[in-house]
């Protein structure tokens, strides 16, 4: 530094020391106060831009001492007009009388939903608000700080949700009514089938059986002819009659099954549940099935241990299931073995009908329990069922609290299982 510069610098320093520097003044808080005031004003300006409103209310007389924020938007009244007014004035009439209690509350914070409106304006739609009242501790006396938030949008959304749910309810009712009507129509249709198909079919079958009996017992023996043609025709007639009987039976069975299924689906099937001895029930089922195997080449085997636990069941319905499964097995297993098995697994009795027949492709393991699904449609030799047996079985088993399913390998045979819950739960064997 050159000497001259140093001297200048020293001179400047000396002047500053003597109090002749740029900022040298006796201590004054004015600049600081100005800065703080400016900060406060900026802060207030900032506060006035928020969507909420903050009221400072005298907790004793309920008068509005100060406010910031969106007071004008919420009340429809300019802030300067609200200043010094009673806070209760902007509230609905029914709330006003509670304001004194609210402001003298012991609780630190109170929250409630209400509405704001200008006390001076006529016909303004009130603004729904949520207000939070706080009582800050301080030396500025008892003051309540009320923070109000406009909840118009929330209210609107709530209204909309309410309207939607009402609409939905109406639609559900309407749909239920329609379904009821459809159900009724279906019931009527079933009743129609019952009367208009089953009754005539019963007559047709009854009369054709009588005709066959008469043909065989009295008419044919009294025909005295050696004409081979006549004889051939007579045989032909008898065969035709048999076809009519067989097809008639099948038709009647189909109608019966349809009616049955309809009842199941409408949950109108009546069950007579009682404590049932499984062994005896299975014996009854086998006795009823004895006829199935008269014309069959297949061997029928039973593997039923004695002393099976009791179940709660409608025996007749369960027998119907077993017979259905056995009859299916017989249909698809002309040779080989059909086995009826029973066992206990955990809390369930498991009944199984196994055959060594043609089996069921895996894709159909579930579908066989759907209406009108039949396996082996290509096997024309196989006696056709109605395609309703297994769906009915499924309903019956489900009504007993059990499950029915099939395990099968095409070409190796099928195993149909169904379970029944053991009375009183788990039983050891």
């Amino acid at each position, binding site marked *: 530094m050159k000497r001259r510069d140093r001297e200048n610098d020293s001179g400047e320093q*000396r*002047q*500053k020391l003597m109090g*002749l520097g740029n900022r040298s003044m006796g201590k004054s808080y004015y600049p600081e106060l100005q800065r703080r005031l400016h900060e406060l004003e900026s802060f207030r300006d900032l506060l006035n831009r928020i969507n909420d409103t903050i009221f400072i209310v005298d907790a004793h007389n309920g008068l509005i001492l100060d406010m910031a924020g969106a007071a004008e938007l919420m009340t429809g009244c300019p802030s300067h007009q609200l200043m010094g007014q009673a806070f209760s004035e902007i509230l609905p009439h029914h709330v006003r009388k509670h304001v004194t209690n609210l402001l003298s509350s012991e609780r630190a914070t109170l929250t409630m939903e209400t509405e704001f409106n200008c006390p001076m304006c006529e016909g303004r739609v009130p603004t729904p608000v949520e207000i939070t009242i706080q009582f800050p501790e301080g030396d500025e006396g008892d003051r309540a700080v009320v923070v109000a938030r406009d909840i118009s949008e929330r209210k609107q959304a709530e209204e909309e949700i309410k309207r939607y749910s009402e609409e939905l309810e109406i639609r559900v009712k309407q749909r239920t009514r329609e379904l009821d009507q459809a159900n009724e129509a279906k019931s009527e249709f079933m009743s129609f089938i019952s009367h208009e198909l089953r009754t005539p079919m019963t007559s047709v079958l009854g009369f054709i059986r009588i005709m066959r009996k008469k043909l065989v017992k009295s008419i044919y023996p009294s025909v005295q002819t050696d004409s081979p043609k006549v004889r051939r025709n007579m045989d032909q007639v008898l065969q035709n009659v048999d076809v009519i009987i067989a097809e008639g039976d099948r038709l009647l069975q189909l109608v019966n099954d349809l009616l049955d299924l309809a009842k199941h689906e409408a949950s109108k099937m009546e069950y007579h549940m009682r404590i049932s001895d499984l062994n005896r029930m299975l014996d009854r089922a086998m006795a009823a099935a004895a006829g199935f195997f008269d014309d069959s080449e297949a061997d029928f085997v039973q593997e039923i241990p004695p002393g099976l636990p009791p179940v709660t069941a409608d025996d007749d319905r369960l027998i119907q299931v077993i017979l259905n499964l056995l009859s299916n097995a017989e249909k698809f297993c002309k040779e080989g073995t059909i086995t009826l098995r029973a066992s206990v697994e955990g809390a369930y009795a498991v009944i199984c009908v196994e055959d060594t027949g043609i089996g069921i492709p895996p894709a159909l393991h579930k579908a066989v329990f759907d209406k009108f699904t039949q396996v082996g449609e290509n096997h024309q030799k196989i006696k056709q069922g109605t395609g309703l047996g297994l769906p009915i079985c499924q309903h019956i088993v489900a009504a007993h609290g059990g499950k029915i399913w099939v395990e099968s390998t095409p070409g190796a045979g099928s195993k149909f299982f169904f379970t029944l819950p053991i009375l009183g739960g788990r039983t050891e064997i």
Partner: protein
Amino acid sequence: MDTDLSGLRKFVAPEFVFGPGSSRLAGQYADNLGIRKVLLVTDKHLMECEWPSRVMDSLAQAGVGYTVFHDVSPNPRDNEVMDGAALFRENDCDALVAVGGGSPMDCAKGIGIVITNNRHVLSFEGADNVPRPGPPLICIPATSGSAADISQFCIITDTRRKVKIAIVSKAMVPDVSLVDPVLTTTMSKALTAHTGLDALTHAIEAYVSNASSPVTDLHALEAIRLVRKHLVTTIHEPDNLDARMGMSLASTFAGLAFSNAILGAVHAMAHSLGGKLDLPHGQCNALLLDFVMDYNFDAAPEKYFKIGKFLDAELNDEMSYEEKKHATLEAVRALKRETGVTGSLADLGVSAEDLKLLTEHALKDPCMLTNPKSPLTADIESIYEKAR
């Protein structure tokens, strides 16, 4: 600075209340200033006296809260100031009350500007370098010498560099000072002597300062007269309130003088000593005073003669310059002897090796700027050598 203002003179003084019992107004003043809670800065030694608790009672009576901070060394350190500022913030204080000698008062001044400017205290070093004044500060001196309760000075030790820095700003002038001579009655003989000679040094340096003015001269000369009249009495009769009042007044006058006329080489050199070796400030001043006067004498002989007269030196017009100078310096030395402040810098542990660095620091001290003479390195080193 574009304009040469060196011919101008300014005089700033705080509001102060002088007289026995004025310290009891602490609470009232704090209340008037709108203060809710003060940081009461004092020192450990003073806590053994009743004065801090008297001030606390006064504050309490006025409903003003307080937190006490007494971790202040005789030469207040930068870290103590920062600790005090932290305590101030932690306790939500809004003002400062300092009770004690120069150390607590300077520490309080430092705390104040750290609080408002949010900067380290060392960053304010120099003259007119405080952007915002600190919070309200009430000073209650318990010594009669430093005049920190009056002055715009704040001296803090930079513990890392081992130098005393001067913060000189009108913003450092307290809001109120309560100058209560009663508080000085508990000072020891040595402290009374050191602080009294500090006041004398303030007055002499302000009087011969190149920034002095008729207003400061008035105060400086009266301070010199009062020191001569009362200092020795206060040492021998600590409870003599008249003498104590005289010294408190002397200190106040000296403060008014030096705060505005600034100081000189004695203080520049004493600051350097205090920073390097942590020596008592008043004692350093006293040991250097007559040697610096000797060096400066020809720069302001008439003023020095006047000082001599005010110190009871027998001077007349028939005496030569040298005779009068000798008589003047002898008057100072006589006072030093009477107050028991003898010995040398070497007695305080100053070694010959220290002098170079001490000189370097002293030359950089702002007080050197208003010394009647602009000394060279050799001059200062020589003065130190003589005082050693």
